């Protein structure tokens, strides 16, 4: 009898311990690294690609914030943490777990040192390349050395799992304090999660007059002042002059308003002209161009134009036909997609560019081939022209190292006689669930001002603060000595042609709606005309969006 009681007691203890083990909280709030989608080879199409080749130009470290002297508090833990976040490959999910563990360690260390921990999440846009990580770590070290109240902790998450990881963190109430750099797209993915900075700007006396007021206003949304300008990326027509020389074509103009000389005739630099030029620059293995008899579209060795990740229908529509608001409605159930017809025509233009009788763009299979750079065609010297924002200058190292040169021309004019450009913008956001909003704003203001001197060149980003723009272009000229001042002027002039509303504008259920756009492009890119009804697919796209917006 006694044995039975003992046995029962042991069984109860065993059950109890199993329950405790099962229900106990995890040791540390690690991001769900292991649940993230597996690493991928292709660059992310939706957002800016992470910088890959270009070594970041590091300027001399700037002075730490003037108001506070570096403290004598030793920070071995912080150093250890920053070392640990040096992820060798952004796709490496194991590195995410290591970074999370290091972050948790740093949190404990900060608390032990009596500092307020502020977590900085990088993974929604650029900033995950190892070289960028190293610069960000320097920034973190500079900041932590500059004062003794806040411990800044860097968390690097691979781009491909960045959104899932952040969503999981937010859902569990363990979101980071600062997120960025992040563009409109990445921000929209977490619409409603950003802190209104208005009161913190006022309380801290942060001088917003250092920015163009229009840029400051652009961050004023229904959620309030959700950000401050940091980096801007105007677009231009990148081109390889040697390819133009080979076929005897003039280079694209470098001043908005200038004409283009085609076959001895002065014409507008519009999409029609652009198309003709792109066709003549599309060459097959036998040396024929796309307009010539005998051209073999199955054996193209160089295309005239590559959109260079600006392939989402929203981007294509904005560039070619002009920015537009893409939905209407006030509440769930009433949202309707309002894509203009000329966006459909713009998309059809790209489809014809791939599968038309005289192609000038790479199809999906061609674009994905290693000899075409796995999608990075211009960098591989496989495209004569590319239209994409300034951030692409981050990633042209292969082209430069191959001995080729590139320049930039103005954006083509739309069918309405107006130039439709696009300006990407990146900044940092504060999560509205942060426990330390004032401290997070202190870090944010440091990142967008003092730290910008190191971060912006690493991100390949044009500073939003006008007086910092010249040093930026000087740094860029060091990377690409062959690029002429006129080219950099083209980018500056591109700031006057923003896409308003942004191609990455907020839509209801943004994540799914944007993903549906990527699927639409992928379908077009990979499906020849005998298997695709373009009109039906466009209509399906709109029908799907009408459902997605109202989910």
């Amino acid at each position, binding site marked *: 009898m006694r044995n039975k009681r003992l046995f*029962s007691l042991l*069984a*109860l203890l*065993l*059950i109890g311990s*199993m*329950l405790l083990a*099962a*229900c106990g909280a995890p040791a540390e709030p690690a991001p769900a690294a292991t*649940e993230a*989608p*597996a690493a991928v080879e*292709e660059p992310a199409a939706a957002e800016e690609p992470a910088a890959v080749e270009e070594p970041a130009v590091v300027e001399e470290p700037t002075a730490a914030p003037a108001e506070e002297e570096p403290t004598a508090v030793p920070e071995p833990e912080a150093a250890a943490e920053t070392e640990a976040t040096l992820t060798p490959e952004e796709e490496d999910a194991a590195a995410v777990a290591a970074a999370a563990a290091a972050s948790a360690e740093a949190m404990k260390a900060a608390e032990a040192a009596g500092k307020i921990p502020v977590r900085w999440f990088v993974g929604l846009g650029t900033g995950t390349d190892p070289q960028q990580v190293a610069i960000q770590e320097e920034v973190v070290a500079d900041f932590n050395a500059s004062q003794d109240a806040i411990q800044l902790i860097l968390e690097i998450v691979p781009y491909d799992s960045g*959104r*899932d990881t952040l*969503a*999981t963190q*937010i*859902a*569990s*109430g363990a979101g980071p304090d600062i997120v960025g750099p992040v563009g409109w797209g990445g921000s929209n*993915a*977490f619409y*409603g*999660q950003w802190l209104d900075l208005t009161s913190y700007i006022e309380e801290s006396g942060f001088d917003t007059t250092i920015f163009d007021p229009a840029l400051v206003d652009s961050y004023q949304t229904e959620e309030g002042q959700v950000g401050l300008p940091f980096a801007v990326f105007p677009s231009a027509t990148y081109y390889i002059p040697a390819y133009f020389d080979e076929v005897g074509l003039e280079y694209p103009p470098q001043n908005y308003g200038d004409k283009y000389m085609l076959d001895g005739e002065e014409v507008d630099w519009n999409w029609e002209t652009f198309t003709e030029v792109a066709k003549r620059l599309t060459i097959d293995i036998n040396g024929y161009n796309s307009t010539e008899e005998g051209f073999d579209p*199955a*054996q193209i060795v160089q295309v005239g134009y590559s959109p260079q990740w600006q392939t989402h229908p929203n981007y294509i529509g904005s560039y070619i036909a002009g920015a537009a608001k893409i939905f209407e409605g006030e509440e*769930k159930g009433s949202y309707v997609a309002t894509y203009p017809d000329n966006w459909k025509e713009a998309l059809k233009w790209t489809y014809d560019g791939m599968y038309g009788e005289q192609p000038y763009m790479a199809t*999906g*299979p061609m674009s*994905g*081939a*290693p000899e075409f750079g796995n999608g990075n065609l211009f960098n591989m010297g496989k495209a004569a022209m590319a239209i994409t924002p300034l951030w692409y200058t981050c990633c042209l190292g292969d082209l430069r190292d191959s001995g080729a040169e590139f320049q930039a021309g103005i954006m083509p004019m739309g069918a309405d006689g107006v130039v439709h450009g696009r300006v990407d913008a990146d900044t940092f956001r504060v999560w509205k*669930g942060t426990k330390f909003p004032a401290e997070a704003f202190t870090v944010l203001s440091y990142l967008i001002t003092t730290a910008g001197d190191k971060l912006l060149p690493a991100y390949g980003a044009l500073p939003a603060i006008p007086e910092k723009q010249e040093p930026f272009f000087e740094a860029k000229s060091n990377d690409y000595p062959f690029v002429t001042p006129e080219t950099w002027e083209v980018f500056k002039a591109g700031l006057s042609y923003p896409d308003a509303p942004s191609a990455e504008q907020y839509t209801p*259920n943004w*994540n*799914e709606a944007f*993903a*549906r756009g*990527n*699927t639409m492009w*992928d*379908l*077009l*890119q*990979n*499906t020849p005309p005998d*298997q*695709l*009804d373009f009109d*039906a*697919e466009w209509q*399906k*796209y709109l*029908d*799907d969006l009408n*459902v*997605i917006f*109202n*989910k």
Partner: protein
Amino acid sequence: MFQELQRGLPKLPTLRAYREMTPLKRREMREGLLFISPWLVGFLIFTLLPMVASLIFSFLDLKITDGITSAPKFAGLDNYVQLFQDPQIWSLQSGTRGSLWITIFFGIIALPVGIFLPLGIALLMNNRHLKGQMAFRSAFYMPYIIPFVAAVFLWGGMLNPETGWINRALMALGMPRESVPNWANDINWVYPTYVIMGIWGIGNAMLIFLAGLQGVPTELYDAAKVDGANAWQSFRKITFPMISPVVFYILVLSVVGLFQFFLIPLVVNQGTGRPGGATMFFNLYLYKTFFTFQNMSYGATMAWLLFFLIMIVTVFLFGTARYWVYYAGERRS
């Protein structure tokens, strides 16, 4: 049907029956419950509770980023109404088909291969003329031991259109470069590619078939031979009926697995649905709805649709079983 299913299950005692039990029986029952209680508790916490939670979610308007502290909004049947009107699930239009049809179309290719190929291999393995049976069995089963994710990565490398040795071999055999398949990046080749990858894991099914085949009494074959039956007749009249419960078991598991198909498109095509949305299988779309699109309510609603679809198909298969599955010793009315 339900009664048939219920027939073999043990009955739970009523309160009255419990009171009428002898002290010994009561103690035995208590101890029995105590022993299975870890499983019961685990089931309650990790299976039943999430199921109930997901059912509740499906009647709410809840986004993953709403956080754990925000008050969810009641949505009634909105998610279900939306679900049955969602073209991304139901659309039959070629090009961007709905995820459910993508799953079904893939199943039409994958299921026969997943059932008949291991059956064929098992028949070969069971052949008494085969030398080195053990070696072959081990060889066919071995891939099953390797973690499937690793295997999928491996296949991804082998089927790489440019660097994979399969295409290199095809080109070495004289196939022009532009004619070699683009495998997982080609809308027309992606499903066959997935089927080829799936073949890697047939070792387990083969082993189950083999066990079934070895349970067929040899006297039946001897009698058939005496009656002049050829190999095909023996297979059709003896082998298949005798292993039909095994075929049925594999079929049910395969159908359930089909609706839950997820890993290969997630790893090979990064869960993007590429190429052209052709790999946005229902379960993958469910996962993305939940975690990437952050729509917990709609994801939960999709999960319940998946549950009912699997249940309906399974019940249907059980319904057909009486016409083609033979259980030795079964009494038929």
